């Protein structure tokens, strides 16, 4: 069984290696057809291993479902009770051993399914989306590598193995955001994402070290079973939280995610909506017993989530770029999961993680279709696309409904689970978190409605764009996108719509019921938010409903100036310091070097005055020295 798990992880890795090394093998003699051949080969390399991996994951889930139950009492252990763990080898490091362990249990398989399904959908979608892209082979190989890394995180049975996957994901994210690196802004965004997540990863790595040292081993089971003092645990989980905030784009470290939309849209769907950003939440769920034993960490997480969800939702309401709207909504939704975790319900968090993964990937793929058609990212360039893109319209409507939490879409159930978890939370910050969550539901409804209305209804505002700059998909003549792009969106629409029902069915089987009272309240709030936007839009369809924010609109659009604050507080002082260092280097260090050189030259010039070729002078010196030596010899002896 563990061999299957290893296969699931290694297949995409092999695909990545093949995609990087073999796509252009032997195509040199094909002339102009070489590009086509490489493209087709890369597509096969990308899709087939991903498909096999997905099939194996489903088989794994089925076999786990029939496994023996464990006593963990979580809903995935009810649903998928089996559990397998295998260790390849234990690396003796001299102090704390590292075990190369893979494990799969309900949590892993649940997340694994999300990853492979979304990754497969994205790979299929990319075949159409990146049709004219010369760097498609490396692109698809990186996507495969990313998938492999994420699966490694998901199936890791050892914290160091998990960290390896975690870092590879960061690398792939960097590579893929900067896919169109010709544009300076894109490579800047990639560097920003890399640096910001790296900042969190420092904390994450040290958190792992603290946990591993305290537990005497990095194996997750050992760590969770170990008897660690609470102070150590709080320190470790807080450090881990830094990494989680970086990867899952939570409040202090969230700024990279909106900029990461510079990457191709399928990448936004895969990495920055469905999977990589979920890794942070997944890790918290994986190490949840440790977090539960450290309540201050959970309180911090709750406050961070509360601030993040509302702020990001407000920012999403004011954005003009469709992908940035979705990016901020991702931050907001991830904050929901964080809030659920803070409230003590990893069940709700994972439920929302899976449903959000499905509907956010769907939304991004649909946004890609829209952008593909319009040739621009800006909502103000869209409008009235309902007739032009009927399939996109319907699938995206499902996505927005799920995002806003409207029944019967999946978001309704998962968000309700989160809200009820937050409501029942016992931490000191819970009332604040609950109020923020409820408000955010309303704002979410508002921005979902705004994006939906502005994109698909109202007057068409398509402007012919002559030559799209890199970073923007190419304009197509066709009305709808090619099939390979429509199919994944359509397939993802099914879980986005139905996953909630299935989840709640599974949840009720596990003894967790939908609480209809709070559900009705949140639905009413969401409808209220959507209704306000609808009313505003009705009164003036050509104007942006975001004007309801009034004077707050600009701060919201700028995401409350967090970027500017970071630039002022961090970037500029660092730059100034760097310049000072450069100046110091040039003036003091180089000056010392040059000065010593000049001083030596000057001194040697003085000495050289004696070296004037007059042999008599030399002999004078010789005799003077002799006399001195003689005097010294006489005096000293």
């Amino acid at each position, binding site marked *: 069984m563990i061999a299957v798990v290893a296969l699931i992880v290694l297949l995409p890795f092999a695909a990545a290696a093949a995609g990087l090394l073999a796509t252009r093998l032997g195509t040199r003699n094909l002339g102009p057809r070489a590009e086509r051949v490489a493209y087709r080969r890369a597509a096969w390399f990308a899709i087939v291993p991903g498909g096999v991996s997905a099939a194996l994951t489903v088989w794994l889930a089925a076999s786990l479902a029939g496994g023996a139950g464990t006593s963990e009492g979580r809903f995935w252990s009810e649903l998928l009770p089996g559990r397998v763990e295998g260790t390849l080898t234990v690396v003796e490091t001299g102090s704390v051993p590292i075990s190369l362990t893979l494990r799969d249990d309900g949590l892993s398989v649940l997340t694994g399914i999300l990853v492979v399904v979304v990754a497969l959908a994205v790979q299929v979608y990319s075949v159409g989306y990146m049709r004219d892209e010369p760097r498609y082979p490396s692109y698809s190989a990186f996507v495969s590598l990313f998938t492999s890394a994420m699966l490694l995180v998901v199936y890791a049975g050892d914290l160091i193995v998990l960290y390896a996957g975690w870092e590879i994901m960061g690398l792939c994210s960097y590579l893929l955001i900067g896919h169109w690196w010709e544009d300076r802004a894109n490579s800047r965004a990639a560097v920003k994402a890399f640096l910001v997540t790296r900042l969190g990863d420092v904390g994450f790595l040290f958190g792992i070290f603290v946990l591993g040292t305290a537990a005497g081993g990095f194996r997750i089971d050992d760590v969770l079973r170990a008897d660690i003092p609470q102070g150590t645990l709080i320190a470790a989980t807080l450090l881990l939280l830094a990494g989680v905030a970086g990867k899952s784009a939570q409040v202090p470290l969230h700024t990279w995610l909106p900029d990461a939309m510079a990457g191709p849209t399928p990448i936004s769907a895969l990495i920055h909506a469905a999977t990589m950003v979920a890794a942070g939440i997944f890790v918290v769920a994986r190490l949840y017993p440790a977090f539960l034993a450290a309540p201050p960490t959970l309180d911090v997480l709750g406050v961070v989530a509360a601030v993040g969800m509302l702020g990001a939702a407000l920012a999403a309401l004011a954005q003009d770029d469709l992908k940035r709207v979705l990016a901020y909504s991702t931050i907001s939704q991830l904050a929901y999961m964080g809030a659920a975790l803070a409230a003590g319900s990893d069940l709700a968090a994972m439920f929302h993680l899976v449903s959000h993964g499905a509907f956010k990937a769907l939304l991004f793929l649909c946004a890609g279709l829209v952008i593909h058609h319009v040739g621009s990212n800006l909502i103000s360039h869209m409008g009235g696309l309902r007739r032009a893109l009927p399939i996109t319209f319907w699938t995206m409507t499902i996505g927005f409904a799920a995002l806003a939490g409207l029944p019967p879409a999946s978001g309704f159930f998962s968000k309700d689970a989160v809200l009820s978890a937050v409501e029942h939370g016992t931490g000191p910050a819970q009332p604040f978190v609950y109020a923020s969550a409820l408000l955010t539901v309303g704002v979410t409804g508002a921005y979902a409605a705004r994006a939906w209305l502005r994109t698909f209804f109202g007057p068409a505002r398509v402007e012919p764009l002559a030559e799209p700059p890199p970073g923007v998909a190419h304009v197509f003549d066709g009305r709808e996108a090619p099939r390979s792009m429509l199919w994944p969106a359509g397939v993802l629409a099914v879980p986005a719509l139905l996953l909630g029902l299935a989840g709640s069915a599974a949840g009720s089987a596990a003894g967790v019921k939908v609480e209809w009272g709070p559900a009705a309240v949140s639905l009413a709030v969401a409808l209220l938010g959507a209704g306000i936007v609808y009313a505003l839009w009705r009164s003036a369809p050509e104007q942006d409903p975001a004007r309801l924010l009034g004077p707050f609109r600009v701060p919201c659009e700028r995401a409350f100036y967090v970027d500017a604050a970071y630039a002022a507080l961090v970037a500029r002082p660092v730059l100034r310091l760097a310049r000072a260092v450069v100046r110091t280097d040039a003036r003091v260090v*180089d000056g010392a070097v*040059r000065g010593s*050189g000049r001083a030596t*030259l000057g001194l040697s*010039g003085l000495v*050289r005055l004696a*070296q*004037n*070729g*007059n*042999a*008599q002078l*030399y*002999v*004078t010196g010789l*005799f003077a020295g002799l006399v001195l030596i003689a005097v010294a010899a006489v005096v000293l002896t």
Partner: protein
Amino acid sequence: MHVVYPVVISALLFSIGVYGVLARRNAILVLMSVELMLNAVNLNLVAFDVWLRDRLHGGQVLTLFVIVIAAAELGLGLAIVLAVFRTRRTVDVDRLRALAEVVRAPGSGRLDGEDAL
């Protein structure tokens, strides 16, 4: 005969020879000064030979040898001086500066490549 007398005179002669070697410009005068120094040494040798009553007469024989060598040296030295005079038209020691470093053009006292730093 006190040994001090010849030895002190020899020291004075030697110092005078040193002065001549160091201060005179004309190469022939320098050679003369060298002869003075050699004679000072000879006086020394003779005085010590007399004082020590060397049976082998090492001091006086060495004096003879020194005289011979001095003659040979002078012959060669004059030949060199004449050769120099033939090529340079001068025998002024302080104007024969071929030993000096090649003098660069004024203002180029900086090393090459320093500007690139």
